[in-house]
Each structure stands twice: as structure tokens, then as C-alpha cells.
């Protein structure tokens, strides 16, 4: 049985990815960030023995270390890691001429960009022992510098550009050890990034999760070349 580790699994895309993996017969170690959200608990209850829920704040060294230890207590190896957790901000309209909020930008970077490094490092002892050695990173079109036409939303866009660069550098670093990478822009989803469910968005998270899992689990040209692809398979420039 293959084992996956998913961050930000409480709701949104992370929950649907977790559901999709469980339905495919995987064992999933799912990172819980929200204390009082019932969906992940219910899902795990329906797949007892194969779903392990661990508390996880990817912005905290200690929390990530503890989660990695808990993961090690329930699995000898991890085959696939999905770096999904991220935050946005209510301060997205601040411009350089109007005054930026640097504290908020540090908070976002610590989670969206550094979180992926933290989790990758803490789980290495388990992923090194895995058969797939696959790192899947949920990024965003907001990280594409070439395509960027925004005049604000500095913190989020900068964090996702940095995340993409982190993926490129980790790919360089770990590819020789047998690791492969998938980098995804999931599209505009009806999820909770703004705090409540965004019903105006285009895509249902379960539909995106299905496409994402095919991309994450299957073989592909991406085994040798790191690219950011969207949920429909389109390639994005850096």
C-alpha cells in the first residue's frame, strides 16, 4: 500500500485530495490545521486504519517536527508528499504607493514558501525510504512572474514565486536521489482561501482534485523536467 502525506487537509483542495487518495486505496497522513472543522475527522472515520490525522502548522518548525514524528510512528515510509497548505490575505489591495504591510508579508512567506522546505526536510527520513519519492507542490498562477499583470497582492504573489523557485532548487538537489516533482496551479476554486467558501469561483475542488491526482500519481515528462502545469494540463512560464 502506498502512503501519502497531505498538508492543509482540513478543507478545500487538501480535503478533496485526501478523499481521492483514500478512495484509491492509499494510506494518507493528513495534516490538520483547524481544530473545529469536522469534515476531515468524518472522512478519516470512514477509512479507519488508512487515514491518520496529525496536527500540523507548516509555519512552525516544532509543529512540523512533531507531525513528522507522528507520521513515522504510523508509517515506515512515505511515497508521496502533497504540499497544499497556504494562506492568502485580506490586505491584497495594498500598493507600493499606498503603503504595504510587511508583517503580513512575512507571515504569508513563512507559510506559503518556507513551509514547503520545512515539511520536505522533516519528512526526508520517511520519503527517502519510499518507493515513489514524489514531491507535489500546489502553487498558483500568481507565482508566474512573466504572466503577472497585478498591481498589488505583493505578499501572496511573492510567496508563490519563491515557492516555485524553491521547487526548482529542490528538484536540482533531490533529483539525483530519485525524487520527482509535480508543480500545480489548481485554478480558481470554490474553497476557503478568503476565510469563507468562495462560491463565485470557477471550479469545484473535487473536480480539480481528480485531475491533480492523475498528474501527481502518474508518470510523465515531468519526471525529468520541472514545469508548472495547471489543472487542465497547460504549462505556465516562470
Amino acid at each position: 500500500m502506498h502512503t501519502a502525506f497531505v498538508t492543509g487537509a482540513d478543507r478545500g483542495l487538501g480535503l478533496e485530495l485526501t478523499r481521492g487518495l483514500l478512495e484509491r486505496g492509499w494510506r494518507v497522513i493528513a495534516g490538520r490545521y483547524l481544530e473545529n472543522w469536522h469534515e476531515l475527522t468524518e472522512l478519516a472515520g470512514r477509512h479507519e486504519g488508512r487515514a491518520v490525522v496529525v496536527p500540523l502548522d507548516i509555519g512552525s518548525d516544532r509543529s512540523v517536527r512533531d507531525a513528522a514524528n507522528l507520521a513515522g510512528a504510523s508509517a515506515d515510509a512515505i511515497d508521496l508528499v502533497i504540499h497544499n497548505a497556504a494562506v492568502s490575505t485580506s490586505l491584497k489591495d495594498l500598493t507600493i504607493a499606498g503603503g504595504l504591510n510587511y508583517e503580513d508579508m512575512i507571515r504569508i512567506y513563512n507559510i506559503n514558501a518556507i513551509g514547503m522546505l520545512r515539511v520536505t526536510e522533516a519528512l526526508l527520513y520517511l520519503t527517502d525510504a519510499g518507493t515513489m519519492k514524489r514531491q507535489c507542490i500546489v502553487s498558483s498562477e500568481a507565482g508566474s512572474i512573466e504572466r503577472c499583470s497585478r498591481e498589488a497582492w505583493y505578499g501572496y504573489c511573492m510567496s508563490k514565486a519563491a515557492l516555485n523557485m524553491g521547487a526548482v532548487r529542490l528538484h536540482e538537489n533531490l533529483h539525483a536521489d530519485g525524487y520527482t516533482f509535480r508543480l500545480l496551479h489548481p485554478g480558481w476554486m470554490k474553497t476557503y482561501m478568503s476565510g469563507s467558501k468562495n462560491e463565485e469561483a470557477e471550479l469545484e475542488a473535487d473536480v480539480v482534485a481528480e485531475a491533480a491526482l492523475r498528474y501527481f500519481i502518474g508518470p510523465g515528462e515531468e519526471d525529468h523536467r520541472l514545469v508548472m502545469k495547471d489543472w487542465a494540463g497547460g504549462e505556465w512560464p516562470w
Partner: protein
Amino acid sequence: MSAGFVVVVGAEHKAAERLCRLWLSEGWTVLASFTGEGGGEDRSRYEDFGGDSRKLHTIAIDPRDSESVQSLSELAASVMERIDMVVVAIDRRRETRLRDGMSCEDVLAMYEYNALAPLRTIEALLPLMEDGMKRLCFLSDVRGSFAAGHGSDYAGYGMSLAAKHMSVKIMSNSLGPRGYTFRILTLNGEREGFGLTEEAALRASRWLADFTDESLLKLENELAEPVPF
């Protein structure tokens, strides 16, 4: 254009020092701002600059602190009638070795220096640029380019530079329509003097200050070759 007014932030950077020297020798008024831990030592390197010493002003700031950055803006307002060009050369680099005690604190510190400090300084200096040539320049490193390899031990550093490049792109989108133009000079920190020989420095100093080129945003290396993000 004839000599103008330039603020260089991160003047302790070797390449920035070369550029300041050249602009001073051409009659520019230069405000050199030191952001490193070198303090007095960094400043003393500027003492033998020659030229018209009345045109050289220096200040040490902590670029992570808005009040400190404000003091730079106040000094600029008192010694310059306008700012034509700002050059941000702030650079912090540490290795990020994934299998060898990676420090998330270091990774965050590089973001604060390399990506946020440029934004803080531009934000503070912007009001003084409205009557100038509106050129914003950034020194960067090849390890911040997605296409460049060999940065695997510098993941955190490269990430901070990618974040900086994104911030420059966003600034160019919002300030471009107001007449601002942007230049990113991508150096190679692995080479002696960041690859900025005397000849390359001269070319770079002219490229950065070429106000006849009104292109919105350009990235070049020290050999005047275009660099992809």
C-alpha cells in the same frame, strides 16, 4: 542626460561601490546608504573616492526597520532637489542545505533583506522621485533566475530573489503608467567582484542610467545579455 541624483541602498556591496565611484566621477550627486553589519568600515571605503566630496552623502540604516528607512528618505530630501534613480543592492546570502541542518530563520532573514527591504526603501523614496527620471534599479544574482542551475545549495537565497523579481514586476505594472522604468542587473556572486570588472561596471553604470531607453522592465547580466526570470 547630464549628471543627476542617485540613491544607492546597500552601498557596502562591492558592485554598488564600483557603480557609485563611476557616477561620482561623472558628477552625479550620490547618496550611499549602508545596510550591512560592516558599519564604519563600509563607509571608510568611500573616503578615498576623490571627486567632489560635497556630492557624496552617506548614511547607515537598518533596511528592515521602517523608521530607519525613513531617516534615509529625510536625508535624501535635505541633500537632493529630486531623486532621478534609486539603486537597491541589498544582498544577504546564506546556504540552505536541505540535508545538513537547514535554518528556516536564515531563509526568512534573506526574504526580509533581499525582497522586503527593497520594497520598504522604494516606498519611502517614491515621493521624492516624482520630479526626477523615475528609474528604479535592482542588483540581483544569477541564482534568482529560474533558468540558471547550480543553485541547489542556495534554495532560500534563490527564493528570496524570485520574490524580489515578482515585487519588481508588480511595481512595474502599477508605476509604469506613471512613467517609472525598471532595471534588474543580474550579477554572478560566485565570481570575483560579482563579475563586475572595471569595463563591465562602466557598461552597467551607463545601462542603468540610460534614460533614453524607455522600456518598462529589463533584466541583463554584467555582459549586457538579457536574462530570463
